[in-house]
Protein backbone atom coordinates (compact mmCIF):
# COMPACT_ATOMS: atom_id res chain seq x y z
CA UNK A 1 0.00 0.00 0.00
CA UNK A 2 1.22 3.51 -0.86
CA UNK A 3 2.23 5.85 1.94
CA UNK A 4 0.05 8.82 2.89
CA UNK A 5 1.60 12.04 1.63
CA UNK A 6 -1.07 14.13 3.33
CA UNK A 7 -3.04 13.44 6.50
CA UNK A 8 -5.66 15.87 7.70
CA UNK A 9 -7.17 15.40 11.16
CA UNK A 10 -10.21 17.41 12.15
CA UNK A 11 -9.03 20.48 10.27
CA UNK A 12 -10.95 23.65 11.07
CA UNK A 13 -10.67 27.15 9.71
CA UNK A 14 -12.61 30.06 11.11
CA UNK A 15 -12.46 33.57 9.70
CA UNK A 16 -13.46 36.43 11.94
CA UNK A 17 -14.91 39.47 10.26
CA UNK A 18 -15.68 41.91 13.03
CA UNK A 19 -18.21 40.20 15.28
CA UNK A 20 -19.27 37.48 12.88
CA UNK A 21 -17.37 34.22 12.49
CA UNK A 22 -17.25 32.34 9.22
CA UNK A 23 -16.57 28.64 9.58
CA UNK A 24 -14.97 27.92 6.23
CA UNK A 25 -13.81 24.44 7.29
CA UNK A 26 -15.60 22.60 10.06
CA UNK A 27 -13.55 19.50 10.75
CA UNK A 28 -12.01 17.93 7.66
CA UNK A 29 -10.25 14.59 8.10
CA UNK A 30 -8.79 12.93 5.06
CA UNK A 31 -5.68 11.16 3.82
CA UNK A 32 -4.12 11.53 0.39
CA UNK A 33 -1.81 8.76 -0.76
CA UNK A 34 1.43 9.33 -2.58
CA UNK A 35 0.71 9.33 -6.31
CA UNK A 36 -2.98 10.06 -5.90
CA UNK A 37 -4.88 12.19 -8.37
CA UNK A 38 -7.65 13.88 -6.39
CA UNK A 39 -10.37 16.27 -7.46
CA UNK A 40 -12.14 18.46 -4.90
CA UNK A 41 -15.64 19.52 -5.86
CA UNK A 42 -18.46 21.37 -4.22
CA UNK A 43 -20.58 24.47 -4.52
CA UNK A 44 -19.21 27.97 -4.30
CA UNK A 45 -18.29 28.97 -0.77
CA UNK A 46 -18.02 25.38 0.44
CA UNK A 47 -14.39 25.90 1.51
CA UNK A 48 -12.45 24.38 -1.41
CA UNK A 49 -10.01 27.25 -1.82
CA UNK A 50 -9.61 27.53 1.92
CA UNK A 51 -8.64 23.87 2.06
CA UNK A 52 -6.25 24.26 -0.89
CA UNK A 53 -4.54 27.24 0.74
CA UNK A 54 -3.93 25.20 3.87
CA UNK A 55 -2.73 22.20 1.87
CA UNK A 56 -0.40 24.57 0.02
CA UNK A 57 1.03 25.99 3.25
CA UNK A 58 -0.11 29.45 2.24
CA UNK A 59 -2.36 29.54 5.29
CA UNK A 60 -2.60 27.79 8.63
CA UNK A 61 -5.66 26.04 10.04
CA UNK A 62 -7.39 27.40 13.15
CA UNK A 63 -7.24 23.93 14.68
CA UNK A 64 -6.58 20.34 13.73
CA UNK A 65 -3.51 18.62 12.32
CA UNK A 66 -1.95 18.70 8.90
CA UNK A 67 0.80 16.17 8.32
CA UNK A 68 2.64 16.68 5.05
CA UNK A 69 5.20 14.09 4.03
CA UNK A 70 5.46 12.89 7.64
CA UNK A 71 5.85 16.37 9.13
CA UNK A 72 3.26 18.27 11.15
CA UNK A 73 3.24 21.61 9.35
CA UNK A 74 0.14 23.36 10.68
CA UNK A 75 2.07 25.14 13.42
CA UNK A 76 5.25 26.01 11.56
CA UNK A 77 6.33 29.65 11.25
CA UNK A 78 6.07 31.67 8.03
CA UNK A 79 9.64 31.12 6.95
CA UNK A 80 9.48 27.34 7.31
CA UNK A 81 6.21 27.32 5.39
CA UNK A 82 7.83 29.35 2.61
CA UNK A 83 10.60 26.77 2.44
CA UNK A 84 8.06 23.95 2.19
CA UNK A 85 6.16 25.75 -0.57
CA UNK A 86 9.40 26.19 -2.40
CA UNK A 87 10.67 22.62 -2.06
CA UNK A 88 7.62 20.36 -1.99
CA UNK A 89 4.69 22.12 -3.55
CA UNK A 90 3.83 23.40 -6.99
CA UNK A 91 0.86 25.75 -7.45
CA UNK A 92 -1.38 26.21 -10.47
CA UNK A 93 -4.01 28.92 -10.19
CA UNK A 94 -7.15 29.70 -12.12
CA UNK A 95 -5.77 33.12 -13.06
CA UNK A 96 -2.28 31.74 -13.90
CA UNK A 97 -0.54 34.24 -11.59
CA UNK A 98 2.44 34.88 -13.80
CA UNK A 99 4.58 38.01 -13.66
CA UNK A 100 3.52 40.14 -16.58
CA UNK A 101 6.02 41.89 -18.86
CA UNK A 102 8.41 39.11 -17.94
CA UNK A 103 9.48 36.25 -20.19
CA UNK A 104 8.10 32.75 -19.80
CA UNK A 105 11.59 31.55 -18.93
CA UNK A 106 12.05 34.06 -16.12
CA UNK A 107 8.64 33.16 -14.74
CA UNK A 108 9.52 29.50 -14.70
CA UNK A 109 12.87 30.20 -13.02
CA UNK A 110 11.15 32.06 -10.20
CA UNK A 111 11.01 29.25 -7.58
CA UNK A 112 14.73 28.63 -8.07
CA UNK A 113 15.45 32.22 -7.06
CA UNK A 114 14.46 31.22 -3.57
CA UNK A 115 16.35 27.95 -3.41
CA UNK A 116 20.04 27.27 -3.64
CA UNK A 117 20.49 26.44 -7.29
CA UNK A 118 23.15 28.22 -9.28
CA UNK A 119 22.40 30.38 -12.29
CA UNK A 120 23.36 27.99 -15.08
CA UNK A 121 21.42 25.05 -13.70
CA UNK A 122 18.53 27.42 -13.19
CA UNK A 123 18.13 28.20 -16.88
CA UNK A 124 18.71 24.60 -17.87
CA UNK A 125 16.05 23.30 -15.54
CA UNK A 126 13.61 26.03 -16.53
CA UNK A 127 14.08 25.20 -20.22
CA UNK A 128 13.57 21.51 -19.51
CA UNK A 129 10.35 22.26 -17.64
CA UNK A 130 9.11 24.44 -20.51
CA UNK A 131 9.94 21.63 -22.93
CA UNK A 132 7.91 19.17 -20.86
CA UNK A 133 4.81 21.33 -21.35
CA UNK A 134 5.63 21.85 -25.03
CA UNK A 135 6.58 25.52 -24.88
CA UNK A 136 10.25 25.51 -25.86
CA UNK A 137 9.62 27.95 -28.70
CA UNK A 138 7.81 30.38 -26.41
CA UNK A 139 10.44 30.62 -23.69
CA UNK A 140 11.50 34.17 -24.56
CA UNK A 141 8.01 35.53 -25.09
CA UNK A 142 6.60 37.88 -22.51
CA UNK A 143 3.73 36.24 -20.64
CA UNK A 144 1.22 38.91 -21.68
CA UNK A 145 1.87 37.89 -25.30
CA UNK A 146 0.76 34.29 -24.63
CA UNK A 147 -2.71 32.73 -24.90
CA UNK A 148 -4.53 31.57 -21.77
CA UNK A 149 -3.66 27.92 -22.37
CA UNK A 150 -0.02 28.79 -22.97
CA UNK A 151 0.06 30.87 -19.82
CA UNK A 152 -1.36 28.01 -17.82
CA UNK A 153 1.31 25.71 -19.26
CA UNK A 154 3.97 28.21 -18.19
CA UNK A 155 2.43 28.12 -14.71
CA UNK A 156 2.62 24.32 -14.72
CA UNK A 157 6.24 24.43 -15.84
CA UNK A 158 6.93 26.78 -12.93
CA UNK A 159 5.16 24.41 -10.53
CA UNK A 160 7.41 21.58 -11.74
CA UNK A 161 10.66 23.32 -11.25
CA UNK A 162 11.71 22.16 -7.83
CA UNK A 163 10.53 18.58 -8.46
CA UNK A 164 7.58 18.92 -6.13
CA UNK A 165 6.00 15.95 -4.38
CA UNK A 166 2.64 17.66 -4.67
CA UNK A 167 0.93 19.86 -7.25
CA UNK A 168 -2.08 21.88 -6.13
CA UNK A 169 -4.34 23.35 -8.78
CA UNK A 170 -7.26 25.61 -7.86
CA UNK A 171 -9.65 25.60 -10.83
CA UNK A 172 -6.79 25.31 -13.33
CA UNK A 173 -9.16 25.18 -16.29
CA UNK A 174 -11.63 27.75 -14.99
CA UNK A 175 -10.59 30.33 -17.59
CA UNK A 176 -9.98 27.94 -20.49
CA UNK A 177 -12.10 26.45 -23.27
CA UNK A 178 -12.75 22.71 -23.30
CA UNK A 179 -10.06 21.78 -25.82
CA UNK A 180 -7.35 23.71 -24.02
CA UNK A 181 -8.67 22.29 -20.75
CA UNK A 182 -8.10 18.73 -21.92
CA UNK A 183 -4.56 19.68 -23.05
CA UNK A 184 -3.87 20.85 -19.52
CA UNK A 185 -5.47 17.76 -18.01
CA UNK A 186 -3.34 15.58 -20.27
CA UNK A 187 -0.25 17.25 -18.90
CA UNK A 188 -1.48 16.64 -15.34
CA UNK A 189 -2.21 13.03 -16.13
CA UNK A 190 1.26 12.49 -17.59
CA UNK A 191 2.91 14.15 -14.60
CA UNK A 192 0.86 12.00 -12.26
CA UNK A 193 1.46 8.73 -14.07
CA UNK A 194 5.04 9.15 -15.29
CA UNK A 195 6.57 11.29 -12.56
CA UNK A 196 4.34 9.97 -9.76
CA UNK A 197 3.56 13.52 -8.63
CA UNK A 198 0.55 13.69 -6.33
CA UNK A 199 -2.11 15.93 -7.88
CA UNK A 200 -4.86 17.74 -6.02
CA UNK A 201 -7.17 19.94 -8.02
CA UNK A 202 -10.32 21.93 -7.40
CA UNK A 203 -12.90 22.04 -10.16
CA UNK A 204 -16.55 22.78 -10.76
CA UNK A 205 -16.74 20.78 -13.97
CA UNK A 206 -17.58 17.07 -13.71
CA UNK A 207 -15.82 16.18 -16.97
CA UNK A 208 -12.60 17.75 -15.63
CA UNK A 209 -13.07 15.95 -12.30
CA UNK A 210 -13.41 12.74 -14.29
CA UNK A 211 -9.68 12.89 -15.12
CA UNK A 212 -8.90 12.32 -11.43
CA UNK A 213 -8.94 8.89 -9.82
CA UNK A 214 -10.60 10.09 -6.61
CA UNK A 215 -13.15 12.80 -6.05
CA UNK A 216 -14.30 14.38 -2.80
CA UNK A 217 -17.27 16.67 -2.36
CA UNK A 218 -17.26 19.55 0.10
CA UNK A 219 -20.35 21.18 1.49
CA UNK A 220 -20.30 23.93 4.09
CA UNK A 221 -16.78 23.09 5.17
CA UNK A 222 -17.23 19.34 5.49
CA UNK A 223 -16.42 16.39 3.22
CA UNK A 224 -19.78 14.88 2.39
CA UNK A 225 -18.88 12.24 -0.18
CA UNK A 226 -15.93 10.43 -1.73
CA UNK A 227 -15.80 8.68 -5.10
CA UNK A 228 -13.06 6.34 -6.34
CA UNK A 229 -12.59 4.95 -9.84
Amino acid sequence: MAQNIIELRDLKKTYCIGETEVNALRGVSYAIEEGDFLAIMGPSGSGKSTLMNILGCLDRPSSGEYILDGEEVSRLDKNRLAGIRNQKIGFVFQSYNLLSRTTALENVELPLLYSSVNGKDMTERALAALASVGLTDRSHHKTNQLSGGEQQRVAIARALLNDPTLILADEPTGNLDSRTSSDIMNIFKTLNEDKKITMVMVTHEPDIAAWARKRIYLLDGLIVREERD
Partner: protein
Amino acid sequence: MLKRSLMHGTRTFRVAIRALGRNKMRSFLTALGIIIGVGAVIAMVSIGEGAKRGIEDRFASMGTNLLFVSPGSRNVRGVHSGFGSFQTLKAEDAAAIEELPAVMFVSPAVNARAQVVYSNKNWNTSIQGTGARYPEVRAWDVEFGSYFDESHVRAAAKVCVLGADVKQNLFEDEDPVGQVVRVKRIPFKVLGVMKRRGESGGFGSRDDMIAVPYTTAMRRLQGIDYIQSVDVRAVSAALMPEAQRQIEELLRVRHRIAPGAEDDFQVRNMSEIAETAAESTKIMTILLGSIASISLLVGGIGIMNIMLVSVTERIREIGIRMAVGAREKDILLQFLTEAIVLSLIGGLIGIGFGIGSSRLIKKIQMFSSMNTVVSVESVLLAFFFAAAIGIFFGFYPARKASRLDPIEALRYE
Protein backbone atom coordinates in the same frame (compact mmCIF):
# COMPACT_ATOMS: atom_id res chain seq x y z
CA MET B 1 28.29 29.67 2.96
CA LEU B 2 30.04 32.79 1.69
CA LYS B 3 29.70 31.59 -1.87
CA ARG B 4 26.03 31.03 -1.34
CA SER B 5 25.34 34.43 0.10
CA LEU B 6 27.38 35.95 -2.70
CA MET B 7 25.26 34.09 -5.22
CA HIS B 8 22.12 35.28 -3.47
CA GLY B 9 23.48 38.81 -3.45
CA THR B 10 24.12 38.96 -7.18
CA ARG B 11 20.77 37.30 -7.83
CA THR B 12 18.88 39.82 -5.72
CA PHE B 13 20.80 42.56 -7.50
CA ARG B 14 19.83 41.18 -10.93
CA VAL B 15 16.19 40.92 -9.92
CA ALA B 16 16.28 44.52 -8.71
CA ILE B 17 17.86 45.77 -11.93
CA ARG B 18 15.22 43.94 -13.95
CA ALA B 19 12.38 45.33 -11.88
CA LEU B 20 13.75 48.87 -12.25
CA GLY B 21 14.30 48.30 -15.97
CA ARG B 22 10.63 47.45 -16.39
CA ASN B 23 9.81 51.05 -15.50
CA LYS B 24 12.73 53.01 -16.86
CA MET B 25 11.18 56.45 -16.96
CA ARG B 26 9.94 56.23 -13.41
CA SER B 27 13.23 54.83 -12.17
CA PHE B 28 15.08 57.68 -13.84
CA LEU B 29 12.81 60.34 -12.37
CA THR B 30 13.19 58.80 -8.94
CA ALA B 31 16.95 58.70 -9.29
CA LEU B 32 16.89 62.31 -10.48
CA GLY B 33 16.20 63.48 -6.94
CA ILE B 34 19.36 61.75 -5.78
CA ILE B 35 21.31 62.90 -8.85
CA ILE B 36 20.52 66.52 -8.13
CA GLY B 37 21.10 66.09 -4.40
CA VAL B 38 24.48 64.43 -4.73
CA GLY B 39 25.47 66.78 -7.54
CA ALA B 40 24.54 69.82 -5.49
CA VAL B 41 26.43 68.60 -2.43
CA ILE B 42 29.58 67.96 -4.44
CA ALA B 43 29.39 71.24 -6.37
CA MET B 44 28.66 73.33 -3.28
CA VAL B 45 31.35 71.72 -1.18
CA SER B 46 33.80 72.18 -4.06
CA ILE B 47 33.18 75.92 -3.98
CA GLY B 48 33.91 76.01 -0.27
CA GLU B 49 36.97 73.81 -0.69
CA GLY B 50 38.18 76.02 -3.53
CA ALA B 51 37.93 79.10 -1.36
CA LYS B 52 39.78 77.33 1.43
CA ARG B 53 42.53 76.16 -0.90
CA GLY B 54 42.84 79.69 -2.30
CA ILE B 55 43.33 81.15 1.13
CA GLU B 56 45.82 78.50 2.13
CA ASP B 57 47.85 79.06 -1.05
CA ARG B 58 47.74 82.76 -0.57
CA PHE B 59 49.01 82.57 2.97
CA ALA B 60 51.54 79.88 2.24
CA SER B 61 53.07 82.00 -0.53
CA MET B 62 53.50 84.95 1.80
CA GLY B 63 55.39 83.04 4.42
CA THR B 64 54.61 82.75 8.09
CA ASN B 65 56.77 85.46 9.62
CA LEU B 66 54.48 88.25 8.52
CA LEU B 67 52.73 90.72 10.84
CA PHE B 68 50.10 93.31 10.05
CA VAL B 69 49.74 96.52 11.96
CA SER B 70 46.51 98.39 11.46
CA PRO B 71 44.83 101.28 13.25
CA GLY B 72 41.87 100.71 15.58
CA SER B 73 41.58 98.79 18.83
CA ARG B 74 41.82 95.06 19.14
CA ASN B 75 38.24 94.93 20.32
CA VAL B 76 36.86 95.98 16.97
CA ARG B 77 38.75 93.21 15.25
CA GLY B 78 36.56 91.65 12.64
CA VAL B 79 34.22 94.64 12.49
CA HIS B 80 34.91 95.85 9.01
CA SER B 81 33.08 99.14 9.22
CA GLY B 82 35.85 100.38 11.48
CA PHE B 83 38.55 99.58 9.02
CA GLY B 84 40.16 102.56 7.34
CA SER B 85 38.24 105.11 9.37
CA PHE B 86 41.13 105.47 11.82
CA GLN B 87 43.79 107.95 10.98
CA THR B 88 46.19 107.20 13.80
CA LEU B 89 48.86 105.31 11.92
CA LYS B 90 51.53 107.50 10.31
CA ALA B 91 54.44 106.88 7.98
CA GLU B 92 56.81 107.74 10.86
CA ASP B 93 55.34 104.83 12.86
CA ALA B 94 56.29 102.48 10.02
CA ALA B 95 59.81 103.90 9.90
CA ALA B 96 60.18 103.43 13.65
CA ILE B 97 58.93 99.86 13.45
CA GLU B 98 61.58 99.07 10.85
CA GLU B 99 64.26 100.07 13.37
CA LEU B 100 63.13 97.42 15.88
CA PRO B 101 65.64 94.58 16.35
CA ALA B 102 63.11 91.78 15.73
CA VAL B 103 61.90 93.37 12.51
CA MET B 104 63.54 92.85 9.15
CA PHE B 105 61.45 94.93 6.70
CA VAL B 106 58.27 96.96 6.69
CA SER B 107 56.03 98.20 3.94
CA PRO B 108 53.32 100.78 4.64
CA ALA B 109 50.11 100.27 2.72
CA VAL B 110 47.80 102.88 1.20
CA ASN B 111 45.31 101.23 -1.14
CA ALA B 112 42.51 102.41 -3.36
CA ARG B 113 40.77 101.45 -6.58
CA ALA B 114 41.12 103.58 -9.69
CA GLN B 115 41.12 103.55 -13.44
CA VAL B 116 44.49 103.02 -15.14
CA VAL B 117 44.80 104.36 -18.67
CA TYR B 118 47.33 103.47 -21.35
CA SER B 119 46.88 104.91 -24.84
CA ASN B 120 43.29 104.05 -25.74
CA LYS B 121 42.86 101.26 -23.17
CA ASN B 122 41.80 101.54 -19.60
CA TRP B 123 41.35 99.15 -16.75
CA ASN B 124 39.89 99.47 -13.27
CA THR B 125 42.21 97.99 -10.72
CA SER B 126 43.57 98.15 -7.21
CA ILE B 127 46.22 100.85 -6.73
CA GLN B 128 48.45 99.67 -3.92
CA GLY B 129 50.72 102.19 -2.32
CA THR B 130 53.67 100.25 -0.81
CA GLY B 131 57.15 100.73 0.52
CA ALA B 132 60.27 99.90 -1.45
CA ARG B 133 60.65 96.64 0.49
CA TYR B 134 57.25 95.33 -0.54
CA PRO B 135 58.68 92.49 -2.71
CA GLU B 136 60.77 91.25 0.23
CA VAL B 137 57.98 91.68 2.77
CA ARG B 138 55.43 89.82 0.69
CA ALA B 139 57.89 87.34 -0.84
CA TRP B 140 56.75 88.39 -4.27
CA ASP B 141 59.34 89.08 -6.96
CA VAL B 142 59.50 91.35 -9.96
CA GLU B 143 59.40 89.55 -13.28
CA PHE B 144 60.67 92.27 -15.67
CA GLY B 145 62.28 95.58 -14.90
CA SER B 146 62.65 96.53 -11.25
CA TYR B 147 60.68 97.63 -8.21
CA PHE B 148 60.91 101.26 -7.11
CA ASP B 149 63.51 102.08 -4.43
CA GLU B 150 63.77 104.30 -1.34
CA SER B 151 64.61 107.38 -3.39
CA HIS B 152 61.36 107.00 -5.35
CA VAL B 153 59.47 106.66 -2.09
CA ARG B 154 61.12 109.68 -0.53
CA ALA B 155 60.41 111.81 -3.59
CA ALA B 156 56.85 110.49 -3.99
CA ALA B 157 57.88 109.71 -7.53
CA LYS B 158 55.31 109.06 -10.22
CA VAL B 159 56.46 105.50 -10.91
CA CYS B 160 54.65 102.18 -10.78
CA VAL B 161 55.03 98.42 -11.10
CA LEU B 162 52.27 96.44 -12.82
CA GLY B 163 50.58 93.24 -11.72
CA ALA B 164 50.51 90.56 -14.43
CA ASP B 165 46.78 91.01 -15.13
CA VAL B 166 47.08 94.74 -15.63
CA LYS B 167 50.10 94.30 -17.86
CA GLN B 168 48.15 91.75 -19.91
CA ASN B 169 45.08 93.95 -20.19
CA LEU B 170 46.80 97.21 -21.07
CA PHE B 171 49.90 96.11 -22.93
CA GLU B 172 49.21 92.58 -24.17
CA ASP B 173 52.53 91.53 -25.77
CA GLU B 174 54.11 94.96 -25.75
CA ASP B 175 56.98 95.67 -23.33
CA PRO B 176 55.56 98.06 -20.71
CA VAL B 177 58.84 98.95 -19.01
CA GLY B 178 59.56 102.65 -19.63
CA GLN B 179 56.02 103.34 -20.89
CA VAL B 180 53.70 105.79 -19.17
CA VAL B 181 50.26 104.96 -17.75
CA ARG B 182 47.85 107.44 -16.23
CA VAL B 183 46.00 107.20 -12.94
CA LYS B 184 43.62 110.06 -12.21
CA ARG B 185 45.28 111.92 -15.10
CA ILE B 186 48.66 111.72 -13.40
CA PRO B 187 51.33 110.05 -15.57
CA PHE B 188 53.20 107.13 -13.99
CA LYS B 189 56.30 105.65 -15.49
CA VAL B 190 56.25 101.86 -15.51
CA LEU B 191 59.36 100.43 -13.86
CA GLY B 192 58.54 96.76 -13.97
CA VAL B 193 56.04 93.93 -13.91
CA MET B 194 55.39 91.57 -10.97
CA LYS B 195 55.48 87.80 -11.29
CA ARG B 196 52.13 86.15 -11.79
CA ARG B 197 50.76 84.69 -8.56
CA GLY B 198 47.66 83.08 -9.91
CA GLU B 199 44.06 82.92 -8.86
CA SER B 200 43.05 82.80 -5.27
CA GLY B 201 39.68 81.26 -4.64
CA GLY B 202 36.91 83.72 -4.11
CA PHE B 203 39.05 86.78 -3.51
CA GLY B 204 39.77 88.15 -6.92
CA SER B 205 43.00 87.81 -8.80
CA ARG B 206 46.05 88.91 -6.86
CA ASP B 207 47.67 89.96 -10.12
CA ASP B 208 45.00 92.57 -10.78
CA MET B 209 46.86 95.49 -9.19
CA ILE B 210 49.51 98.13 -9.72
CA ALA B 211 51.99 99.15 -7.04
CA VAL B 212 53.07 102.76 -6.52
CA PRO B 213 55.17 104.31 -3.74
CA TYR B 214 52.92 104.75 -0.71
CA THR B 215 54.01 108.35 -0.43
CA THR B 216 52.75 108.95 -3.94
CA ALA B 217 49.48 107.25 -3.10
CA MET B 218 49.07 109.41 0.00
CA ARG B 219 49.94 112.79 -1.43
CA ARG B 220 49.14 112.64 -5.12
CA LEU B 221 46.31 110.16 -5.36
CA GLN B 222 44.40 110.31 -2.09
CA GLY B 223 45.55 113.48 -0.39
CA ILE B 224 45.83 111.97 3.08
CA ASP B 225 48.51 112.20 5.76
CA TYR B 226 48.10 108.78 7.35
CA ILE B 227 48.69 105.21 6.21
CA GLN B 228 46.17 102.39 6.24
CA SER B 229 48.37 99.63 7.59
CA VAL B 230 51.89 98.36 7.79
CA ASP B 231 53.11 94.98 6.62
CA VAL B 232 55.98 93.79 8.77
CA ARG B 233 58.35 90.92 8.11
CA ALA B 234 59.92 89.65 11.33
CA VAL B 235 63.50 88.46 11.38
CA SER B 236 62.32 84.87 11.74
CA ALA B 237 59.20 82.88 12.51
CA ALA B 238 60.59 82.19 15.99
CA LEU B 239 60.85 85.89 16.70
CA MET B 240 57.24 86.62 15.79
CA PRO B 241 55.97 87.01 19.38
CA GLU B 242 58.96 89.14 20.21
CA ALA B 243 58.39 91.33 17.16
CA GLN B 244 54.76 91.69 18.06
CA ARG B 245 55.62 92.71 21.62
CA GLN B 246 58.20 95.23 20.46
CA ILE B 247 55.80 96.80 17.98
CA GLU B 248 53.07 97.10 20.59
CA GLU B 249 55.43 98.67 23.11
CA LEU B 250 56.78 101.09 20.52
CA LEU B 251 53.42 102.22 19.25
CA ARG B 252 52.01 102.73 22.74
CA VAL B 253 54.91 105.04 23.50
CA ARG B 254 54.67 106.81 20.14
CA HIS B 255 50.92 107.26 20.44
CA ARG B 256 51.19 108.27 24.10
CA ILE B 257 48.75 105.73 25.35
CA ALA B 258 48.41 105.81 29.14
CA PRO B 259 49.05 102.53 30.99
CA GLY B 260 45.82 100.56 31.20
CA ALA B 261 44.23 102.42 28.29
CA GLU B 262 43.31 100.55 25.15
CA ASP B 263 45.61 100.37 22.15
CA ASP B 264 44.61 102.51 19.18
CA PHE B 265 46.16 99.96 16.79
CA GLN B 266 46.24 96.24 16.41
CA VAL B 267 48.99 93.83 15.48
CA ARG B 268 47.93 90.59 13.95
CA ASN B 269 50.13 87.79 12.74
CA MET B 270 49.75 85.70 9.65
CA SER B 271 48.62 82.51 11.35
CA GLU B 272 45.90 84.36 13.23
CA ILE B 273 44.56 85.79 10.01
CA ALA B 274 44.91 82.49 8.26
CA GLU B 275 42.95 80.82 11.03
CA THR B 276 40.14 83.36 10.91
CA ALA B 277 39.93 83.02 7.16
CA ALA B 278 40.00 79.22 7.32
CA GLU B 279 37.28 79.33 9.96
CA SER B 280 35.01 81.46 7.80
CA THR B 281 35.50 79.30 4.70
CA LYS B 282 34.81 76.23 6.82
CA ILE B 283 31.55 77.75 7.96
CA MET B 284 30.76 78.61 4.35
CA THR B 285 31.50 75.05 3.24
CA ILE B 286 29.31 73.59 5.97
CA LEU B 287 26.53 76.01 5.13
CA LEU B 288 26.63 75.32 1.40
CA GLY B 289 26.92 71.58 2.03
CA SER B 290 23.98 71.45 4.38
CA ILE B 291 21.74 73.43 2.08
CA ALA B 292 22.60 71.00 -0.68
CA SER B 293 22.02 68.05 1.67
CA ILE B 294 18.43 69.10 2.02
CA SER B 295 17.90 68.39 -1.66
CA LEU B 296 19.47 64.98 -1.10
CA LEU B 297 17.00 64.38 1.70
CA VAL B 298 14.13 65.42 -0.56
CA GLY B 299 15.47 62.97 -3.13
CA GLY B 300 15.34 60.25 -0.48
CA ILE B 301 11.74 61.03 0.31
CA GLY B 302 11.07 60.76 -3.43
CA ILE B 303 12.53 57.27 -3.36
CA MET B 304 10.33 56.29 -0.43
CA ASN B 305 7.28 57.66 -2.20
CA ILE B 306 7.96 55.76 -5.41
CA MET B 307 8.81 52.57 -3.57
CA LEU B 308 5.52 52.76 -1.67
CA VAL B 309 3.63 53.19 -4.93
CA SER B 310 5.63 50.38 -6.40
CA VAL B 311 4.81 48.04 -3.50
CA THR B 312 1.09 48.74 -3.89
CA GLU B 313 1.27 48.19 -7.62
CA ARG B 314 3.16 44.97 -7.25
CA ILE B 315 1.19 43.32 -4.45
CA ARG B 316 0.22 40.51 -6.79
CA GLU B 317 3.81 40.01 -7.84
CA ILE B 318 4.76 39.82 -4.17
CA GLY B 319 2.01 37.22 -3.63
CA ILE B 320 3.30 35.15 -6.55
CA ARG B 321 6.84 35.29 -5.25
CA MET B 322 5.68 34.24 -1.81
CA ALA B 323 3.62 31.37 -3.26
CA VAL B 324 6.69 29.92 -4.95
CA GLY B 325 8.71 30.12 -1.76
CA ALA B 326 9.98 33.67 -1.19
CA ARG B 327 10.46 34.30 2.51
CA GLU B 328 9.83 37.60 4.26
CA LYS B 329 13.55 38.23 4.16
CA ASP B 330 13.71 37.69 0.38
CA ILE B 331 10.96 40.21 -0.32
CA LEU B 332 12.45 42.69 2.12
CA LEU B 333 15.86 42.39 0.50
CA GLN B 334 14.44 42.67 -2.98
CA PHE B 335 12.68 45.96 -2.37
CA LEU B 336 15.50 47.29 -0.25
CA THR B 337 17.96 46.43 -3.01
CA GLU B 338 15.81 48.23 -5.54
CA ALA B 339 15.84 51.36 -3.41
CA ILE B 340 19.58 51.11 -2.82
CA VAL B 341 20.35 50.45 -6.48
CA LEU B 342 18.24 53.48 -7.41
CA SER B 343 20.05 55.72 -4.99
CA LEU B 344 23.48 54.35 -5.89
CA ILE B 345 22.91 54.81 -9.60
CA GLY B 346 21.57 58.27 -8.79
CA GLY B 347 24.64 58.80 -6.62
CA LEU B 348 27.05 57.80 -9.37
CA ILE B 349 25.41 59.98 -12.00
CA GLY B 350 25.19 62.72 -9.36
CA ILE B 351 28.95 62.53 -8.80
CA GLY B 352 29.52 63.08 -12.51
CA PHE B 353 26.98 65.87 -12.50
CA GLY B 354 28.54 67.48 -9.42
CA ILE B 355 32.09 67.35 -10.82
CA GLY B 356 30.79 68.71 -14.12
CA SER B 357 29.00 71.63 -12.53
CA SER B 358 31.95 72.39 -10.33
CA ARG B 359 34.12 72.63 -13.48
CA LEU B 360 31.49 74.78 -15.11
CA ILE B 361 31.38 77.19 -12.18
CA LYS B 362 35.13 77.57 -12.53
CA LYS B 363 34.80 78.29 -16.25
CA ILE B 364 31.89 80.70 -16.31
CA GLN B 365 33.25 84.20 -16.78
CA MET B 366 30.99 85.73 -14.15
CA PHE B 367 32.70 83.76 -11.39
CA SER B 368 36.13 84.03 -13.01
CA SER B 369 37.84 84.48 -9.69
CA MET B 370 36.06 81.53 -8.11
CA ASN B 371 38.09 78.41 -7.72
CA THR B 372 36.46 75.04 -7.07
CA VAL B 373 38.15 71.94 -5.72
CA VAL B 374 36.35 68.58 -5.76
CA SER B 375 37.78 66.62 -2.88
CA VAL B 376 37.73 62.84 -2.69
CA GLU B 377 36.18 63.12 0.75
CA SER B 378 33.20 65.10 -0.48
CA VAL B 379 32.61 62.59 -3.28
CA LEU B 380 32.80 59.62 -0.91
CA LEU B 381 30.66 61.38 1.65
CA ALA B 382 27.96 62.25 -0.87
CA PHE B 383 28.02 58.71 -2.25
CA PHE B 384 27.70 57.02 1.13
CA PHE B 385 25.07 59.53 2.13
CA ALA B 386 23.11 58.54 -0.99
CA ALA B 387 23.44 54.85 -0.13
CA ALA B 388 22.34 55.52 3.43
CA ILE B 389 19.34 57.41 2.14
CA GLY B 390 18.46 54.44 -0.07
CA ILE B 391 18.60 52.11 2.92
CA PHE B 392 16.78 54.48 5.23
CA PHE B 393 13.96 55.47 2.91
CA GLY B 394 13.78 52.07 1.22
CA PHE B 395 13.35 50.17 4.44
CA TYR B 396 9.80 51.13 5.31
CA PRO B 397 8.29 50.26 1.90
CA ALA B 398 10.34 47.06 1.78
CA ARG B 399 9.14 45.99 5.19
CA LYS B 400 5.60 46.77 4.21
CA ALA B 401 6.00 44.52 1.19
CA SER B 402 7.52 41.68 3.18
CA ARG B 403 4.75 41.71 5.78
CA LEU B 404 2.02 41.07 3.23
CA ASP B 405 -0.09 37.96 3.64
CA PRO B 406 0.48 35.66 0.65
CA ILE B 407 -3.18 34.78 0.15
CA GLU B 408 -4.40 38.35 0.32
CA ALA B 409 -1.58 39.44 -1.95
CA LEU B 410 -2.51 36.78 -4.51
CA ARG B 411 -6.14 37.82 -4.43
CA TYR B 412 -5.33 41.55 -4.79
CA GLU B 413 -6.70 43.09 -7.96
